[in-house]
């Protein structure tokens, strides 16, 4: 699909979701997926600031352990931390060892096959609430158009988190961030139950939660919560997405 069409349909899909059955983790996952499809990156993910001031992973284009691990390391050091602290983008950082800035992150990223990393701040009215992290398996600079598109998607992510409200109400922002971070924990707890009950891996477990939510028009976090509290059988989730009729 041509990039413009992809971006337009992404924006429409996100606008839809803001009105209907909004689930912040799902929206940010879709956003991460679209980054990978629309621009020349191989993995994308979103980290948000916790009330304590540190970054926490909330969504990614890939649920594989190798990618999640890179986000977990970035609570302490890495491009996202730097980008978040300064509120400014980090573009075209080639990953090389030894790395004095990111002594834990860089070797791990390289061992997972990534050669360069970029990070765009999620900002609204002067406040940075998180970062959009992009990884490439190839070296070489980010295309200038790609940077604009990525920043645009980051801006959409920020608005999505605030659920399209126009005023930056501090207590609302705290609520939304706290809710997003806690939702990710619920999803991890649910992944564990699904993986154990069905012997699928964690990546597939996430896929099942998502497929089930889509097929039944339920929120992703709501499905995960039901699995955790036992009202939805971890063994009874739809395994694949049903085509829309």
């Amino acid at each position, binding site marked *: 699909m041509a990039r413009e069409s992809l971006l337009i349909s992404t924006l429409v899909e996100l606008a839809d979701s803001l009105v209907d059955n909004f689930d912040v983790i799902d929206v940010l996952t879709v956003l991460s997926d679209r980054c990978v499809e629309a621009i020349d990156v191989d993995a994308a993910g979103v980290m948000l600031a916790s009330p304590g001031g540190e970054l926490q992973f909330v969504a990614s284009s890939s649920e594989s352990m190798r990618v999640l691990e890179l986000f977990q390391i970035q609570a302490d050091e890495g491009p996202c931390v730097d980008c978040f602290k300064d509120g400014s983008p980090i573009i075209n950082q080639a990953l090389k060892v030894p790395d004095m800035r990111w002594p834990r992150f860089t070797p791990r990223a390289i061992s997972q096959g990534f050669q360069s990393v970029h990070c765009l701040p999620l900002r609204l009215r002067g406040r940075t609430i998180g970062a959009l992290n992009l990884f490439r398996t190839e070296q070489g600079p980010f295309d200038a158009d790609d940077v604009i598109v990525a920043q645009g998607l980051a801006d959409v992510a920020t608005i999505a988190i605030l659920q399209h409200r126009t005023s930056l109400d*501090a207590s609302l922002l705290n609520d939304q961030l706290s809710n997003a971070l806690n939702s990710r924990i619920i999803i991890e707890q649910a992944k564990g139950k699904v993986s154990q009950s069905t012997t699928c891996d964690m990546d597939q477990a996430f896929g099942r939660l998502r497929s089930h939510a889509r097929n039944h028009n339920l929120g992703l976090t709501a499905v995960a919560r039901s699995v955790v509290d036992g009202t939805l059988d971890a063994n009874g989730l739809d395994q694949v997405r049903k085509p829309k009729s």
Partner: protein
Amino acid sequence: MRIVATDRLLAILSLMRKQVSTGGERGGRLCTVAAEFTEQSGAGIALASERGGLTSMCASNSVAQRLMDLEDTFGEGPGVDASSSSAAIEEAELVSPTSSRWLAYSPAAGAAGARAVFGFPLCIGAICLGALSLYRDRPGALTDAQASDAYLMASVAARAVLAMQAGAPQDAIADELVREATFDFAVHQAAGMVSVQGSMSVGDALVALRAHAFANDSTSSELAVRIVARDLRYDPATCEWRDG
């Protein structure tokens, strides 16, 4: 593994350590720290009991205790609402002619000395342990910084309560909170897995995981990585942990 803890978290931990050294009974310290850290007149923590409803765990002063007793009596209030909705609750003008929130609780809480009350759920994902409630003797909302601090305090309190339930020694709790990562996906996945292995709630599974870590001088993270790799599992028949 935590390497860097943020300033605000370190401030909480420093207050907790100070409390331990000055004595003071178990859970009470947590509430005293909560009130001081959030700069409010008082704090109380109530935990969800199996029968439903909340049971008071600690209070930083007699007014905070009274407020929790009122919530228990009337079945309404910031802690009750925060716990049942898993969302933060704010009532900045408790004593106001136009307020219709909590018809029984509000006047009684006002008579006890409160003018603003706030409730924050103690949740770790879908494990909801209860609520942290704060009160102030003057009306007004929390500032942005105080609200962030209150969310952080609730998160630390939830983890501290879980550590206590898992049998962590009182003076080790602050150290334990520094050591473990605030977000560790393996720990949460492992709790889900163990809950299925042991046919227990995810909350009980997380406590069991923590307890096993304490007993073996290990960390929840280290055990969780092994559990997710299917190298360690909980055996419900023997209530023991087994390799492989």
